[in-house]
């Protein structure tokens, strides 16, 4: 019952702060709709319009800043109003047509309530009593309308800056399912999630972040599915974030979990609204940051990072098979080079005579030790991959082909590398690309290097040692109270094995919270 009351409070608060044609009082002191930050403390709006003009001009660096616009208008009744906006951020044509011209034509007295109810023709409008908050809203693209003798102003949602259109997901491509992706505009991103979850229990609340760049962020979660203690903990962590950092998905993760040396991602960064919606419905929280085209999903487990949206869009058998192949690929990627090195260096007895003779024959004339050869090729593979990502699209593909085929062939011909080791590195690289999450791919690459070095030092014993250390490390990670290896370890009651996809049963809201990994 308490939860529903709280939900009602949240929702009713939003409706009030949204303004529009509802009752105008009480006047809020800071922004609504989860969009505007609270500024630097409350500051009353000066009653004299000339004071407002002077102070707003100082705050917006007018007239040195050519984009700052401060325009006085006088109505037929002879009363004055001041419109403040920033050119390029605000849609000036709409400001003229729907705000300034109606005021010029109006014979009504110019008060915030009268203008809001009977003069201007703007849908998104609210009253604001805090001068700092009003200026913050202006800096974010709204227009502010001040009146002579009034202790509040109107904030008009006339954002008009250029933004990227909703496009196709590039980093998480799928054959089936929706293709759209998040943009850098937080309002668009929230709208994309709302389209997927049209529920009264979807909560969108302003994240309590205060940073030097004034970047806005919102928390999106399902009221019944998300654990309240996790939401509260996240709020606390966000409050403690240092302000002198530019906020993006990546920096938010580092600030939430501390600057550890662990390469494993602790949050899921997704550019797909359908994936974010799926996680929200299974009890996770999405942190959307203005200017960042990914949603930060948390808490997560390692298995969330290994899932792909396509697992769910395919039928159960095919989805499970895809997952098994992906896990095999990941294991190959991490363990195969080290395992091969162990066998070749320390445990030749495990290899058959035929394989051993092939390895020996392929390494004839190769000058460097096999460990160095393997490490060198792995590093070159990383170089090719990095180079391919940094250069423009078609050239990047060409670099991959040139690096993979021509350089590999040339290295074998020049006896810089053996063909067997090249095959091992290529297979390991392919396995690495099976991992759906980019940052997990990178983490797997670094772990692979650690395994190769351990194998070089101690063969299978070194690998066993490294494997236990890695498992211990993974087992000790927690993401907002959720163990990283759950539901495998610790076991979760009613959890399905993460390796296979479970049936889609419906009516599953709130069931997850770490119990099931059958989300995208």
């Amino acid at each position, binding site marked *: 019952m308490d939860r529903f009351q709280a939900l009602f409070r949240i929702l009713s608060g939003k409706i009030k702060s949204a303004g529009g044609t509802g009752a105008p009082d009480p006047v809020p002191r800071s922004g609504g709709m989860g969009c505007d930050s609270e500024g630097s403390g409350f500051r009353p709006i000066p009653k004299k319009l000339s004071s407002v003009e002077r102070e707003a001009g100082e705050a917006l660096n007018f007239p040195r800043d050519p984009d700052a616009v401060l325009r006085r208008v006088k109505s037929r009744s002879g009363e004055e109003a001041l419109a403040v906006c920033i050119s390029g951020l605000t849609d000036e044509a709409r400001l003229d047509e729907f705000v300034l011209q109606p005021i010029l034509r109006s014979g009504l007295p110019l008060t915030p309530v009268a203008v809001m109810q009977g003069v201007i023709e703007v849908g998104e409008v609210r009253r604001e009593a805090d001068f700092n908050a009003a200026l913050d809203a202006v800096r974010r693209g709204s227009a502010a309308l001040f009146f002579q003798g009034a202790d509040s102003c109107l904030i008009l949602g006339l954002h008009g800056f250029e933004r990227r259109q909703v496009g196709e997901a590039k980093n998480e491509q799928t054959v089936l399912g929706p293709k759209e992706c998040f943009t850098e505009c937080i309002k668009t991103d929230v709208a994309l999630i709302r389209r997927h979850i049209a529920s009264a229990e979807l909560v969108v609340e302003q994240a309590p972040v205060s940073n030097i760049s004034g970047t806005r962020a919102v928390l999106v979660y399902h009221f019944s599915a998300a654990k309240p203690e996790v939401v509260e903990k996240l709020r606390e962590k966000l409050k403690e974030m240092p302000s002198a950092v530019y906020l993006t998905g990546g920096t938010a993760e580092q600030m939430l979990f501390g600057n550890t040396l662990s390469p494993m991602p602790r949050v899921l960064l997704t550019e797909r609204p359908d994936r974010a919606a799926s996680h929200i419905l299974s009890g996770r929280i999405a942190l959307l940051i203005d200017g960042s085209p990914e949603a930060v999903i948390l808490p997560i487990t390692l298995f969330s990072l290994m899932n792909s949206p396509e697992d769910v869009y395919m039928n159960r058998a095919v989805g499970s098979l895809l997952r098994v192949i992906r896990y095999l690929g990941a294991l190959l990627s991490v363990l195969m080079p080290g395992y091969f090195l162990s066998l070749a260096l320390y445990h030749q007895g495990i290899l058959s005579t035929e394989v051993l003779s092939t390895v020996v024959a392929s390494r004839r004339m190769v000058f460097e030790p096999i460990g160095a050869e393997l490490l060198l090729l792995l590093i070159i593979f990383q170089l090719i991959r990095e180079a391919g990502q940094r250069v423009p699209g078609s050239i990047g593909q060409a670099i991959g082909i040139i690096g993979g085929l021509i350089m590999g062939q040339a290295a074998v011909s020049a006896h810089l590398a053996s063909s067997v080791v090249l095959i091992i590195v290529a297979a390991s690289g392919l396995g690495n690309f099976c991992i759906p999450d980019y940052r997990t791919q990178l983490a797997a690459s670094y772990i692979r290097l650690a395994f190769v070095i351990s194998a070089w030092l101690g063969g299978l014993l070194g690998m066993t040692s490294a494997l236990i250390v890695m*498992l211990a490390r993974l087992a000790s990670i927690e993401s907002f109270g959720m*163990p990283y290896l759950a539901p495998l*370890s610790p076991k979760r009651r009613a959890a399905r094995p993460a390796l296979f996809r479970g049936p889609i049963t419906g009516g599953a809201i709130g069931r997850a919270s770490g119990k099931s990994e059958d989300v995208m």
Partner: protein
Amino acid sequence: MKYPPNSGRAGLIASVGTALFFCGVFSIEGTRAYAQNVPTYIAIPLALLLSLAPVLLAARAMKRAGARNLGQLMRFSFSRVFCFAASLSLAAGALFAAANPLADCARVLHKLVYDGAAYRSILAFVFVPLAVLCVKGLACITRTGLIMAAPLAASVAAALLTAVPGYDTARLFPLPGCEIIDAASFTASYSFAFLPVLILSLVFPQNPGTHSKTAVKAALFALPFITLSLLAVRLSYPAAMLGGISMPLYRMGLVRPGPGFLLRLDKLLIMLWLAGSIISAALLLRCAGELLSDALGVRKGLTAFMLALICIMSVLAEAHGAERTAVIRSYLFIYGALLTLVPTAAASLAALFKRRMA
């Protein structure tokens, strides 16, 4: 509040079961067991069941005293000085129980896999994960133990199945019953080998009354693996040969006729079992470390790390002073478990007595 957080009972059962398996199969004092022709495949499972008795007593005492772990029971029963002495005694028992399987694995690795390497180098590779696990804590150990439980079970099953062509029932002769007194004596003495694991599993904080369930489930989890492994060993080798073979479970695949792909994978088995030994040792040492740190008021991670260091040093010392340490080991094998039995039984009885007095 649950502690360790999110460790889960399944992880605890799997880790304790793994430790019991390694104590049951890898720590056998072969000379004594097989020279007397003891049917280990009966005696050792019986010993495991027998060793549950003191644990059930301790669990009952904890339930009566409302203690959530062994440390609370000790503080309830003993004064501060006695509590410290009991913790020290339990830590010594844990050290012995942890070092045994580790030493067996390291010895086999040194002899059969890395014959040219220095023993200390092998132990260095063992020490790193052991120390990491000890420092990370009980939740980490049980989670790692749960992940490794399935591969370990699969590796034991693989070892038993690949050796099937080499089994010969004639090797079981003379049948159990011929040396009944020796077998009974062996069972009684071996029951103490499992005690450190079972008793130290009580260090995990749980709701009063659930400790006994955890211990029984772990024992039942380990029991079939122990029985089948020991039976397979006896089916593979005659008793006369087994006395001189270290880790016969690993080597029984060698009696399989003809070469084969699976036979070549034997080194993977030993690596997996080494991983299991390390997790078992870490579990024991961390539990002992928690008890000691409670008594001493120092950091748990530091105490567990020091115990891991002492454990590895003692394994190294055993290899260097084989003659002397073999004698010490055989004495410890018989009487060492008293180190865990006496303080636990005393604490349990004292708690039950105190409760009745109250």
